[in-house]
Structures are given as C-alpha cells and as structure tokens.
C-alpha cells in the first residue's frame, strides 16, 4: 500500500514530524514500512528560502562573489558564492550553517580566500533535484523568505510503501492511515467535508438514469447504492488530482475514473462509474453469473465466469465482475455524458473466491475481500459526487436507488482495564486506556464493574477483549514493554525422543568423522521407482508439486547423501564421509508411514593420495557404527540378527550387505553394507560406497525402559578354552556361535557360568574340505564363588566336544 505524505496531510497536520518520525510511528503501529520514496525535493532541514540583497566582487578571487543574503532572521548572512546566473533580488535556496545536504554534505562556516561564508546558496543538484549544476536554483514566484525550502516545492512528496496486515482493511486508505497516525501522535483527524446533502433531493422533474436496481443475490450483496449524474464533461483530471494518483503509482485516465480511484484510495471504498448509455435496458441487476458466461474485463482479457461469481449486469449482459473489475464495454470514456455511480458492500469471501478463481486481483477486489467499512458506502458515494460536480461538472439527477441496507455491525465488548494490565504484565492508568480507545473512535461506556467498548463500523477485527488489549498495546507503544529477567518456575520435562535421538546420532556420527548434510525432503518419481521399487509410488505423491524433480516424499536418506558425495566429488572438495538425520516416508499396503531415519555413507575413491595406507572402511565398520546407532535408540538389533541382503533391485549389493527388518513388530529396520556398482556409477562416483541406514517409527521411541537394577558379578578369574569347528560355509557364524553357546551352558550346568562365546578366527583353504569353513571360538568360563580349576574346566570342555560331535553337524577341527 502506497501512502503519499502530501495526500495524508489533507487529513492530519504532520508538519512538525520528520519523515523518520512518521516512518517509525507507522512501524510501531504495525504498518511495516518497506520503502520510503522521495519524489521531488527531499525533506531538508535548515535549508530555507533566501533573497540576495547585495553582490560584491570577492577581494581575492575573480570568480567568487561575496553576497549578503536575507534569510528571515534579523541580520542578513554573508555568503561567498561561485555561481554567476543570479541577480540581486533573486530568491534562492540557502543551506544554513549546521544543515546537511543530500549525499551527507555538511554546511559549516568556512573561510574562502580570507572571507567567511556563513552558509551556501544551492544549485538544483546540491539539493538533490536532478543533475543541474550550472548555477543557483532561482526560485519562481515569491516564496516567503526564511520559509523551509520544502514549502517552496509543494510537488515534492514522500511516499511510504506499507505492509497492511490482512486484518486491517480500514487502513487501505489515506484516511485510515491518517486516523492511526492521529491516534499515535495525539493529533486531530480532519474528515473530508461533504457538500452534497444526501437528504436533499436534486432538482425535481427528472427520474434517475436507470429504472431500478434488482438484487437477486442479497447474501453476496447486502447493500447497493446507485446515484445518477447527468451532463458530466469527461476530460483529463486537474493537475493536483493527477499528482496524487501518480504519487501512488496510479495512472490517471479521465476525471470521473480518477475520482473513483481517488475516493478508493482516500476512504478505502471502491466505487464504480457506469456510462449510463451503455446500461442495456436502463436497468441494473445484481445476480450470480450464468455458468460459462463471458466478459471481457478492462485489462482486455476474456473471462469465463461460473455461477459462484457475482456480476453487476444490465438487462442483457454482465457489466462488472462485482467488486473485481468492470467490462471494457461499459467503460466511461470521452463520449460519456451521463453516469451511474455505484457504491456497494459485497460479501468478502465471495469476492475472494471470485478473484482467486479468475486469477484477477484489483485495488477494488483487494479491499472488498478483506472487508470495507459496512457503513461507508454512502459517504464515499457522496464524496465522489462532490468531486465529480466540482471537477467534471454536471448535476445529480433523480433520487438515489438503494437495494438492501447497511449491514448492522453493533458490537459491544465488555472489558476491564485490569484484564489488559494482567495480560500485558505491567502497569498503566485507566485514563491512558480510555484515551487510546477514544482516539480509535471506539465508544467507551463505564458500567459498574466493567467498561463497554463499542468499536467503529470499520473495525470488524475488534470483537473480543484480547483484540482491545492489542489495540491498547499497539498505541501505547510495544517499545514500552519493560525489560525484565526471565522468571519461570521449574518444570521437570524430557525432550521428545526424536529430538534426543537426533542429537545423539548426529553427535556420534560427527565424532566418527562423518559430515552432516541436509537434503530436501522431496525427490523425483523416477528415482524412487528405480531404486525403491518395492514401494507403491502414488501414496507418496504430492498433489501440487512445484518442481518436476521434487514430486514425491523421500523414502530414504541415501539418495540425498549420494547427491552430496557426487556434488563434492565433482568439485574436488575432499568430502568422503557424510550423514543425515531426518524424516522419511514409507508406503506399506497403500498407507504412508512417517519415519525417523539416520543414514551414513563412506566413499572410498579408487585412488587415494595419502602418504600412509589405512585399512578401508568395510562392511564391519558399517556394522560397528550401526550397533551404536541402534543402541542409542534402545533397539535390540543383535538379538534379532542381520539377514544377508538378497533383494534384487535395491541399492545394496547382494553378498556384501545385510538388513534387519523388524518393522512389523519392533517398528524399525536397518541396512548396512556396500552399494551396488550400478548405484555408484549412476551417481558418477569412481570408487566404492559403503554405509548404513536406520529407519524407525517415531512412536516406538522413548518407551520407558524402567529402572536399571544392579546385578552382582564375579570377583574370580576366567578360564578360557578355544575350540575350532568345521561347518558348512553357507552357515552364519552367529548360528554356530549360538548353538555352541547353548551346548556349553547345558554341559556346564549349574557348576559354573559360560560367560561368553566369541568368534576369533574364520578360515577356509588348505586342510578344510571344499564347501566347508573353520570357525574358531573362544569360550570364557567363570564361577561366582571360586577360581576354577583346570580339572573342572577340562571336564566340561571335553564333555562339550563330545556333545558337539554327537549332536551337531559340526566337526571339531584338530
């Protein structure tokens, strides 16, 4: 919303306020000043109108003159000047000592070749008025000597570009903003004075230009007023009117159209002027559009209407998309003589829908859809009539025609000053509150134990005590909220499990030399169908994506991490280890699950340039990381156990990857291992990529695990035995380990504990039959109450060997 300071000054006297003060006031009133534009002469302080009284040659410089200049003070000033285009008696702008000119140029008393100059006479450029620096700016007419220079340049203006929030349609006008500033500065607001008396009928004998107005959709148009004006002379608007409109970026068209625009920007009420001759059948019908009905709007576009939309029509055709834009056919033009002036109140949500459906927004629809003053239509019409009669001539004809009536807006809000103080948390007197409400033109009546506040008709946003509390704070000044230290009672609460886990996982992976990355949550359909074919695509689709490669919810963090590796590889940044933590989405049986996920990748380039070789990141490195990630989430990954990856078409390389799928019961799944060569190639990576991904239903996290109870442990040493078994090479080591452990526990019975069994060697080759492998285990025995003797351990161990030979397909390797 553009607000011209000159225009504003018609309703409020702001002469004693600087532009900065006004901008600050607007900001603090809740109208954010996005830009301040100066047109013409900028606001200058201590630059005044002066008159040259004497002009003498400078004693020491041929090109300089020493002048005596009258500036409205008792004594004329001595000013040294280098220009030559002026004569004694000319009025010129004088920058006084202490002023500063555009560009930050400060004026001091300075000595020029032995003569002191107390100020400077200025060229247009020095005042910021264009590029002319040929000589002094000679002022036309006889501006008052000593007056601020800006007064001599009434054309210059300051235009504020404001953000008016959607709850304040009453401020989409100069008067509205003026009212706010008047309340803020404690000044008087001057309404435009009406000359047309609505109650006095125009000269008798002629009926209105139209036969009548019929409203078929009173819900969408509660109030419609039409005035007839005859004998109007269409012409360009006078300069002052054009100037106002131009200042706020409106293009002047002709006097009548300009006046309706002026009133819209003055009062916030949109008006429409019809050429009476173009109203077919001399009758106005306010109705819903017929489905498919067409209209060519003023912007010269054909619009196809539907029955949701309201139109102002004549007997034959729609003339206006109500409240939005008129048709090119009923436009007021040079040939227009008689006009019908419309002022109405339309249902805001209907206008909003229409405007959106047509993709057409106008100054008029912008105001109607936010809500104009329900009681403002007639005032605006009369204001426009005054201006038309004054500027375009003509006369009012016949009576006003009105259908419907002003919507009633009686609102009384019961409030106590104490409520406002309690919400604010600091003190201010009742009288201040009352002043604020009155300044906003609210009625305030004091009842026994409360106040009854009645907001004006244009403040549809005020209907609850909280709304009034806001009004008070806004005008009292939110910069007056006192500074205080934080004082809050303690609350024993725990972070959401997802939040704590995110923190644990990111910290851990960063410590393990992985760089955190962040990728968008939306990915392409192609990518998901290619690498995650087991998901149905449609449930993951967005209804209204904005980019063709961001159409679906991501199902995994891995592709984003591959993007990061690729991006950095291409730029040779040296990044090889990446991770991300975030939400992903899985489809199962047509339904979507939102999951917490953490994933990490390590890139192993084909060639590394390092002075020392390291063992490369491998499957078991990934497994160790996954173990910690799972543990942080309290997931028992070990007891569920990994399955070797066998799925075709996934990202992971068969035979070198594994997964745990516990989604159905425990609500999580994990993958670790090596990515397929095809994947690595697809992302242009010249090497290997390994990593892992853990995906958890958030609702499974943070289950209370109860208190830990300490279990005593043995103070005696262990007895260790090694045993190598020859088994089928396809067997998982874990299967054999568990079987061996079970047997060892059975054999030891209650005599002592088998504390642990672990694999310490895996061997294939010489000495081992084909299709078999050797697994060597380490068995640790321990008793709670004694040091074990070789004898008792030996007995158990030999019984174990017998048992293995007898009851399992494993053979003991000698």
């Amino acid at each position, binding site marked *: 919303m553009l607000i011209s300071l000159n225009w504003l000054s018609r309703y409020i006297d702001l002469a004693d306020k600087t532009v900065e003060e006004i901008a600050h006031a607007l900001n603090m009133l809740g109208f954010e000043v996005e830009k301040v534009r100066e047109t013409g002469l900028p606001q200058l302080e201590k630059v005044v109108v002066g008159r040259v009284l004497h002009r003498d040659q400078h004693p020491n410089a041929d090109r300089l003159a020493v002048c005596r200049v009258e500036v409205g003070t008792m004594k004329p000033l001595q000013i040294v000047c280098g220009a030559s285009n002026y004569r004694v008696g000319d009025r010129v702008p004088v920058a006084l000592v202490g002023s500063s000119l555009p560009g930050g140029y400060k004026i001091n008393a300075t000595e020029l070749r032995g003569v002191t100059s107390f100020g400077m006479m200025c060229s247009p450029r020095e005042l910021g008025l264009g590029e002319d620096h040929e000589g002094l700016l000679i002022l036309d007419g006889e501006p008052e000597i000593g007056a601020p220079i800006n007064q001599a340049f009434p054309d210059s203006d300051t235009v504020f570009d404001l953000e008016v929030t959607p709850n304040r349609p009453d401020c989409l006008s100069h008067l509205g903003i003026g009212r706010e500033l008047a309340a803020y500065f404690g000044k008087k607001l001057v309404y435009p004075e009406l000359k047309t008396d609505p109650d006095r009928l125009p000269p008798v004998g002629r009926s209105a230009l139209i036969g009548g107005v019929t409203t078929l959709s009173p819900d969408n148009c509660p109030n419609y007023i039409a005035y007839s004006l005859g004998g109007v002379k269409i012409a360009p608007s006078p300069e002052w009117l054009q100037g106002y409109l131009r200042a706020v970026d409106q293009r002047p068209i002709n006097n009548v159209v300009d006046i309706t625009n002026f009133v819209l920007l003055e009062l916030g009420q949109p008006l429409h002027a019809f050429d009476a001759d173009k109203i077919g059948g001399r009758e106005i019908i306010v109705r819903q559009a017929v489905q498919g009905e067409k209209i060519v709007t003023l912007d010269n576009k054909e619009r196809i209407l539907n029955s949701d939309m309201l139109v102002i029509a004549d007997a034959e055709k729609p003339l206006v998309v109500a409240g939005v834009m008129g048709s090119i056919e009923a436009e007021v033009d040079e040939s227009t003589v008689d006009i019908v002036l419309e002022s109405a109140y339309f249902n805001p949500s209907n206008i909003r829908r229409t405007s959106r459906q047509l993709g057409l927004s106008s100054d008029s629809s912008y105001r109607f859809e936010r809500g104009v003053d329900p009681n403002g239509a007639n005032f605006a019409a009369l204001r426009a009539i005054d201006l038309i009669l004054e500027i375009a001539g003509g006369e009012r004809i016949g009576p006003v025609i009105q259908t419907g009536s002003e919507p009633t807006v009686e609102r009384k809000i019961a409030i106590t000053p104490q409520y406002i103080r309690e919400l604010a948390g600091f003190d201010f007197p009742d009288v201040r509150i009352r002043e604020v409400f009155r300044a906003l033109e609210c009625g305030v009546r004091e009842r026994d134990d409360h106040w009854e506040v009645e907001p004006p008709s244009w403040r549809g946003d005020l209907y609850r005590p909280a709304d009034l509390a806001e009004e008070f704070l806004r005008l009292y000044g939110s910069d007056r909220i006192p500074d205080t230290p934080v004082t809050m009672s303690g609350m024993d609460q725990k972070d959401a499990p997802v939040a704590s886990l995110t923190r644990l996982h990111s910290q851990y992976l960063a410590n393990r030399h992985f760089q955190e990355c962040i990728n968008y949550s939306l990915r392409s359909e192609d990518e998901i169908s290619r690498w995650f074919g087991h998901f149905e695509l449609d449930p993951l689709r967005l209804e209204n994506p904005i980019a063709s490669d961001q159409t679906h919810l991501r199902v995994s963090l891995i592709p984003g991490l591959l993007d990061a590796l690729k991006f950095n590889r291409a730029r040779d940044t040296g990044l090889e280890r990446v991770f991300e933590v975030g939400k992903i989405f899985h489809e199962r049986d047509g339904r979507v*699950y939102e999951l917490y996920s953490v994933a990490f990748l390590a890139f192993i380039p084909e060639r590394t340039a390092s002075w020392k070789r390291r063992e490369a990141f491998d499957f078991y490195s990934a497994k160790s990381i996954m173990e910690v990630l799972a543990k942080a989430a309290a997931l028992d990954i070990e007891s569920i156990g990994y399955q070797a990856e066998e799925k075709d078409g996934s990202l992971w390389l068969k035979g070198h990857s594994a997964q745990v799928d516990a989604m159905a019961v425990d609500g999580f799944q994990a993958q670790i291992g090596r990515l397929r060569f095809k994947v690595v190639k697809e992302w242009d990576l010249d090497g290997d990529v390994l990593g892992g991904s853990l995906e958890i239903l958030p609702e499974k996290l943070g289950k209370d695990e109860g208190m830990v109870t300490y279990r005593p442990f043995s103070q005696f040493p262990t007895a260790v035995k090694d045993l190598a078994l020859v088994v089928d090479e396809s067997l998982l080591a874990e299967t054999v380990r568990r079987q061996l452990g079970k047997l060892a526990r059975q054999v030891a019975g209650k005599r002592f504990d088998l504390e642990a069994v672990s694999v310490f060697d895996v061997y294939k080759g010489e000495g081992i039959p084909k299709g078999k492998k050797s697994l060597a285990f380490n068995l640790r025995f321990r008793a709670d109450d004694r040091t074990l003797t070789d004898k008792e351990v030996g007995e158990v161990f030999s019984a174990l060997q017998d048992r293995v030979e007898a009851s399992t397909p494993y053979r003991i390797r000698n």
Partner: protein
Amino acid sequence: MEDTLKALISEAEDGIPTVRTRPQFEAFKARYLGPHGSLTRAMRGIKQVPREDKPRIGQLLNRTKKRLEELFEVCLGAIEEEEQAAKLGEAIDPSLPSPDPPPGNLHPLTQVREEINRILKSVGFVVADGPEVDTEFFCFDALNTPEDHPARDEQDTFYLPVEAKLANVAKFSDERYLLRTHTSTVQIRTMLGQRPPVRIISPGRCFRRDTTDATHSASFTQVEGLYVDKGVTVRDLKAVLDFLFKSLFGSDTKSRFRPHFFPYTEPSFEMDARSAHLKKVGKEWVELGGCGMVDPAVFAAVGYDPEVYSGYAFGFGIERCAMILYGIDDIRYFYQNDYRFLRQFGHPVSC
C-alpha cells in the same frame, strides 16, 4: 669376607653399563648368581666363618644378594625397553598429517538449532516433536486460520492428494494432509495431549510452495515456542525473547516488538533485532520472526479455558538466524552440502 662382598657389588655396578643385550645380561648375571658365580661361592663360604661372626656375615650376604638383584632388575628393564623400541621401527615425524578422514561437523543449521535449544532449555523449555506431513486441522483450523485464508491456498502450501492415508499421523476429522508450513502444528498436538502448564519448543522442517532463490527456500527450518500457564504476560514474552537473542547473538543485542497480525496470536508482534557486532544486523533492525499471546480461538480449539489460562507463542527461522550469525547471504548454501561451506562451521555443540 666383608671386603670381598663390597668389591663384588662395586664391580657389578661398574659392569652394568656395558650389558646391552639379553645374552650379555644372562652371562653377567651368571657371573654372580650362577652355580660358579662369585656370590654363590661366597655363600658357600659361610660354613668357614667363626660361629660368633655367622649372624653378621649372613646378614651381609643377604644384603649383597638383594642389592645385586636390584641391579639386575634395572638392567633387564633397560634392555627390554630397547628391544621394544627396536621392534617399533623408525621414529615418527610429528608433522606428517593423519591419514584418517578429516573431522566431521554438524551442519550449521543443526548447530544453530541446538544452540537455540540449549538456551531455551536453560529457562525450562523442553523440545517437542511432531510429524512433517500434518493435516489442515493442526496446521490451520486449530490455529484460527480460516478456510479461505491465502496461506491455505494451493499456491502456497503443498498438499497430499485427498485420498492419501498416513498410518501414523492422526487426522482430526476428514481434513486433507499437507506438508506443514510451520511447526505450530506441534503446539496444537501437544496442547491436545496435555493440560497446562505447557512449555515447549518445536524445532523442525517446514515447507512452503516458494520458488527457491537467495532468500526463499521451499524447505526451511523453524523453531517455535509455546508457554501456557496461569498469568503468562506480554512482558514475560518480551523477557524470554530478549534473553534468547542476547544469548544467541551476543549481549549487545537489542530487540524490539512491532505490532503485527497473525491469526493464532492476539496481540501479535514481529520481533526485530539489532546487534552492533554482527555485520548483517549492525545498523538496521532486522526482522527475525513473529510472536504474541495465544489467541483465545486457539485455546478454544484445544479445549483450554481462556478465562483461566494465558500463554505466549513465538516462531522464527533457523536459516535466518544462521545467516545473521555467520554473515551468510544465500539460503541455498544450506541445502547444497558443499564441504567448503559446511566445514567452516566446525564449532563443537554443547548438548
């Protein structure tokens, strides 16, 4: 006898520095303690000592033996150390770089998020979480944002198709799913799930249907705060945000409230900050986010009595804070994952 033993010790002491290897050591030790060693011989000679001298000489012999054993132990220790060192090979060059990968870092957005969490946790907030795909009810209706509000437009908000079903994100009734446009959704879910007092922050990813440029991103992160209790005031809100921004941007930071409008707060404010030492906010007030007192309509939606409780809410973008804090001028850098960008933010985060 006494002189012999004294001479024996000093001889051993003199000899030790020449013993450098294990065989030398064994031979040296045998010279004294072997079957024909000099001390062994001396001990045998005790028999010849007159009876009255026997206790004294016996003691002397023991002392001598103990001393010799001490010497041997030290000597062996030195030999073992040299053997170990020889096994390790050449001395290291401390200036060579480690061949291990360079340190990992947390993403700057994570660092700023965690810093904000830390600050607000220190005054009693707790971190809440909620789904990124949420519904119109939690994102708009419950937040007093009417059906025809522009923010709900398909131009501005990503929706899922009407028939979309989320198994683990509950709808309120039959509203549509969408990508949340702010994390206020978490406030609604929290308030529906518990009675006051509520004091939470909800950091998280949000989405708006914006074309990405230097200052806009279709995906961004936000932190929202909510405190509902009896007697919560505007002044409390100002106090907590002052505290937050001073802690985050430095103690010279000034903040101010400007009245504004949000459907879910009344009164509503925008908060601006200025901090002389930060280039981006050194001279002018910079808008950081919005805040206000929870609108009575929001309380009505979650079943809190606005006559009894009051509360404040605030929200702002983490990207914006990070850009101000680090002087970053393009929001897209946060989502590009260029290591040359990311590794500049190597500060550890206190969790």
